[in-house]
């Protein structure tokens, strides 16, 4: 939490100064103050601390879980970074090894030669999905799902996020995607749905039981008027309140660019027949991609 607060000020170009032990002060301008505290606020010296006692003694804003100041900072941060992009630089990969791997695969029934070699970038869509399991209570969780935009499939292995560097890739080097963003999102949601289905469903069961009980009471109350509009409305309200539901929403997304090694090959069959092939290799997904039409 403390790192997050300091990183926030750093990204805003501000440097908090520790004026007393555990109490920091930072000069916040009008614009940021309005973002933090509403349109009536004006720029001021903002003092903050993470310690309850210091907050009481020095009157500094307390930053702790649930506090107003932490929430106001979180709200501002969460409005940012809706969309971003990053790439994995080429230097993380050893091209001769990849070439060797490609040749080994293509020449499994004969021999293969590399006649041309180029570089492209594959696109992945990284989505931060908020899943709300709404039963008798609401339970929220955040999931990062990466979708390969070449195929629309979910990247199920650990994505090497540590290799990512800010920024995108040159447009002409980007391999056109085969999957629409919308489809990628739907696939990601379906994947999350599957994940939930494999987990403990106690929350849904509990809600179903409560719903059934309440429906019974409602049924008794409306006995003789079960076809009435009022009954239907009340039943709908009951379902809205108690029926278990999994709600998935996207919070933010990023386009990730991954180097794609593209080779023009000549493959010689055991009979001596030569054929030309183009093949692209995605080292992150460990996939051989066919050429696009």
């Amino acid at each position, binding site marked *: 939490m403390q790192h997050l607060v300091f990183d926030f000020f750093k990204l805003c170009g501000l440097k908090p100064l520790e004026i007393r032990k555990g109490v920091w002060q930072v000069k916040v301008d009008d614009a940021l103050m309005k973002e933090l505290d509403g349109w009536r606020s004006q720029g001021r010296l903002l003092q903050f601390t993470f310690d309850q006692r210091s907050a009481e003694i020095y009157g500094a804003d307390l930053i702790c879980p649930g*506090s107003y100041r932490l929430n106001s900072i979180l709200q501002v*941060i969460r409005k940012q*970074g809706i969309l*971003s992009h990053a790439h994995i630089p080429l230097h993380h990969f050893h091209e001769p090894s990849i070439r060797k791997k490609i040749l080994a695969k293509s020449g499994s029934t004969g021999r293969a030669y590399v006649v041309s070699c180029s570089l492209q970038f594959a696109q992945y869509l990284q989505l931060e999905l908020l899943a709300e399991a709404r039963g008798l209570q609401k339970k*929220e969780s955040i999931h990062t799902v990466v979708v390969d935009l070449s195929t629309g499939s979910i990247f199920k292995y650990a994505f090497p996020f540590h290799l990512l560097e800010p920024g995108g890739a040159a447009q002409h080097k980007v391999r056109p995607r085969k999957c629409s963003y919308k489809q990628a999102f739907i696939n990601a949601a379906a994947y999350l749905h599957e994940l939930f289905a494999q987990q403990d469903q106690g929350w849904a069961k509990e809600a*179903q039981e409560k719903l059934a009980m309440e429906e019974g009471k409602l049924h008794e109350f409306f006995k003789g008027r079960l076809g009435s509009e009022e009954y239907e409305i009340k039943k709908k*309200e009951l379902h809205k*309140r108690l029926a*278990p539901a999994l709600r998935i*929403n996207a919070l933010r997304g990023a386009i990730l660019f991954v180097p794609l090694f593209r080779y023009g090959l000549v493959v010689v069959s055991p009979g001596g027949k030569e054929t030309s092939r183009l093949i692209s290799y995605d080292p992150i997904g460990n996939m051989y991609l066919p050429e696009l039409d």
Partner: protein
Amino acid sequence: MSQFFPGFAKNQIKIESLDLLQETPSPNCTVEVLATGFKRIIGDLRQKRFDTWDWYSLARRADELMITQQQTTELLAIEYLKERWKQAGVVPYPHQLETARRVIFDMQGQAILADEVGLGKTIEAGLILKEYLLRGLVKKVLILTPANLLWQWYHELYEKFDITPGIQRTEWDWNFSDILIASLDTAKREPHASQILDIPYDLLIIDEAHKLKNSSTVGYRFVNAVQKKYCLMLTATPIQNDLKELYNLIGLIKPGQLGSYRSFKSRFIKDKRTPKNPQELRELLGQVMVRNRRDEKTVQFTERIVHPVVVSLTPKEQELYNRVTRFVRERGRRSGLQNILPLITLQREVCSTFLATALTLEKMMESIEQDQQMEAAELLKDLADVKQNSKCDALERLIGELGDNKIIIFTEYKASQEYIRYRLEKAGYSTLAFDGTLSRGKKQWIRHLFQNQGQILVSTESGGEGLNFQFCSVIVNFDLPWNPMRLEQRIGRVHRLGQSRDVHIFNLITKDTIEEHIIYLLHQKINMFETIIGELDAILLHLNLGKSFESEIMEIFLAHEEQEKIRERLDQFGDRFIKGQAEVRTAKWELF
């Protein structure tokens, strides 16, 4: 949305439901994939609006932290509002926090908050609302209150919960404001009602919900038809006359909780005021109703100490009082109790200051008959000539005796307020004025000045509504309102949750005037200053007077000239009140 994503059904895509609960007959769970967040991402993508990777990463960490915070089963609002409560001097009581927890975690937001008066039902409702807002469970909220409480709700929500609701003014407001406060009487009328019924509300809050006890009223049917996910109903008197009222109220928030009316009647009603199986009924009520009572476990109120200050009028003042009274009686007899309101005002003003009386009389001159005009003109002239005011003399002496205590002086009339200030300033006291004409900002400012610098605040009642002055513990009633409800509102500004000292109430009563009768009724007969705190609204509602309290008194006063007769009639009226009080008290039926 559909243009943007032709394949998306309205706002969301429904995915085939999963077999979630394999052991139950209806094992499905709805999966909703919302397009809202994704639409934002796509919007940025189309415009190639990429944020830096650092902001993106920080935002992801903020998301995680936010979610972690929200997983707690503790109330988020407590920590969130800590600073605000410190500034506003709010200290939530344990019973209020517990109520909010119960409503949110055990009752799924469907509850009747039936605390006894003065225990802070509004704070409980505000806390629940704030908690739901922080947890992202409600967005569209409608608060229905009696018209005179609109601003009070606004202030409570804004000052104590950092919520800025709208107050309904026009028919466009229903859709415009996410959190809207409106009068129930307005809301149930067309064209408003049909608009409201089209809106699915996340939370509906109804203050003074006992007004919906009768299921055949328009108000009841309207509230029943409002689409709502969560519903809070606030009332101190969930039952007034009949157990059916309770059944009706519960039917609004959770129909079926008490079964059908027939089964409820056979299981739980012995007669309309006596429950059968009270233990079982109590358990069922406990699932939808929270009732905190005034005891050691909730909160202890300080004492109210009443000091009558009897003021003798000078012979000249007494003579003028008698002449005004005669004039009022004469007018009352002629008009046959029609248009009685100006006469009530005049009779009350003459016990306050002659300045206020003169101003009203001057206004009345235009509408009175020729033969009375002469008398009125003479009266007006004599009223203007009086230079002395014995009540103000007594007030000055009283203030001198009270030392440095902060004092609120209440009067009903603006003219009296100005005169009191003139006299006190002349005597060397600095005063602040508070009245209904001040803007909200000015009222807050005056309150701030009074709290930090001033000693004396001279207030008309309208000015006092919606603001609390717990930091002061001395009230002077310069004149007495005839309606006990108004008197209670005055005292309630000071004697409420948060008051740590006993409250001293000084009543200035002019001898040999109608005020003596009023104080007899309110203080000696029904002892409203000390013993019926919090029950008054219920008693008045129960009495069902048919006309205002003031009109009842005025009728008695106009009908009789002999003091004994007036006293006798007031006694009868007081007895009715006491009987009503007893009935309201027994109506609690040990159910809660």
